[in-house]
């Protein structure tokens, strides 16, 4: 227990978490601090390209075998199935409308790249190795949850007699584009394939750019995330304590599902921690745009706030060391 507390405290005092806290506090104090949008997009692009590339290089060492193929399939299944559990919990414990509950559920099946990246840095700082193909699993978990969210919303819409924008052929095309070729999926998968193909030769060529500045860039991006999460929290009206509670307990439920999947796949402690993080995290980039297109009656103020302002800070500050402790206890 003492070890868990000391690891958790160690996580709180990393530059990443402290920069996140700085952004959060600055926004609460109504500071005019802000990172220009183009720069924050540039930082996000760097982080996604780099983490994809690093994962690909790792896989080039380990090789692509049956276990990797099964892991990728498991990742898709986890992302697809988690929204059904989230939807059930939301409908059972809150008064949230069907469309909004379906949209929220989709966010919790998908993942947060930044939470994952922060967790990989946390594991690196603890000297805990993890499998390279976890990055590919992350990329594949971005969007299956959108399909589940649409299925849940459609079920709700047919019961309520309402229509979905996704029924319009043009909007369906937009949603499909969002599912298969949204920017983060393209960049993560593309970076991963480039890293896998070029291996150590590629790392020698671009490692000075792709690897060395990584932690510093992550700190700056977490500063931006702190500002954004805090401002979102200030502007939000979640409509009930149970909705807020969902944003705190659903990550634990998702992490447990991730740990069960890790046990089935025989992952290492580091790999199991990262799969728990993937199960626990919620999307705030790819899924909100898709849900806005396809489920217009769902309230974006609820799903963006839950994923960005409640679950993201919870995972970064408290969740990651807790998931590592659980993985160590179960698999160590």
């Amino acid at each position: 227990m003492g070890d868990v507390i000391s690891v958790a405290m160690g996580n709180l005092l990393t530059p990443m978490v402290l920069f996140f806290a700085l952004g959060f506090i600055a926004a609460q104090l109504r500071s005019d601090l802000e990172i220009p949008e183009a720069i924050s997009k540039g930082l996000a692009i760097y982080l996604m390209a780099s983490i994809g590339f690093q994962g690909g290089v790792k896989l080039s060492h380990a090789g692509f075998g049956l276990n990797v193929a099964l892991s990728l399939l498991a990742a898709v299944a986890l992302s697809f199935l988690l929204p059904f559990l989230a939807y059930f919990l939301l409908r059972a414990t809150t008064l949230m409308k069907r469309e909004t509950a379906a949209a929220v559920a989709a966010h919790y099946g998908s993942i947060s790249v930044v939470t994952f990246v922060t967790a990989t840095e946390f594991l690196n700082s603890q000297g805990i190795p993890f499998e390279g193909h976890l990055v590919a699993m992350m990329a594949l978990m971005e969007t299956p949850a959108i399909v589940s969210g649409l299925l849940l919303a459609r079920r709700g819409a047919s019961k309520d007699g309402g229509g979905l924008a996704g029924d319009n052929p043009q909007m369906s095309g937009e949603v499909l584009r969002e599912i298969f070729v949204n920017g983060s999926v393209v960049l993560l998968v593309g970076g991963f394939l480039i890293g896998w193909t070029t291996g150590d030769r590629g790392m020698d060529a671009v490692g000075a750019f792709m690897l060395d500045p990584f932690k510093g860039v992550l700190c700056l991006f977490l500063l931006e995330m702190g500002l954004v999460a805090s401002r979102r929290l200030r502007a939000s009206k979640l409509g009930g304590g149970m909705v807020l509670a969902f944003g705190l307990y659903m990550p634990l439920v998702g992490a447990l599902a991730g740990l069960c999947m890790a046990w089935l796949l025989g992952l290492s402690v580091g790999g199991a921690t990262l799969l728990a993080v993937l199960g626990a995290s919620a999307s705030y980039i790819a899924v909100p745009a898709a849900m806005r297109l396809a489920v217009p009656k769902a309230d974006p103020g609820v799903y963006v706030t839950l994923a960005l302002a409640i679950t993201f800070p919870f995972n970064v500050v408290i969740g990651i060391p807790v998931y590592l402790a659980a993985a160590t206890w179960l698999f160590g």
Partner: protein
Amino acid sequence: METFKKKRVEIILEQPMVRPMLHLIEKLGVTGYTMLPHLSGKGHTGERGETDLSGALANAMIIVITSQDQAHRLMEQGLKLLTDRTGIIYMSDVEVARDQHF
């Protein structure tokens, strides 16, 4: 100086709806538009602006200058696309210097 009467249609809509609306504008055969991304403001659905990373809570504006017939078609079909969504669409009279551009 000779000027030509046209209609200016302005559509303020959610950022994720920009692509579908531009698709409609092109389908109607309108020859050009201007798009202003990442806008904030306040309306009957409350405040909107850049308080997230997805753009789901931000607004954008599309400006189209076109003939009266095209403008009415755009108003009618654009309004259908905005059903159940945050957004406004309106038009006004303008005079342009180069008729062949519109």
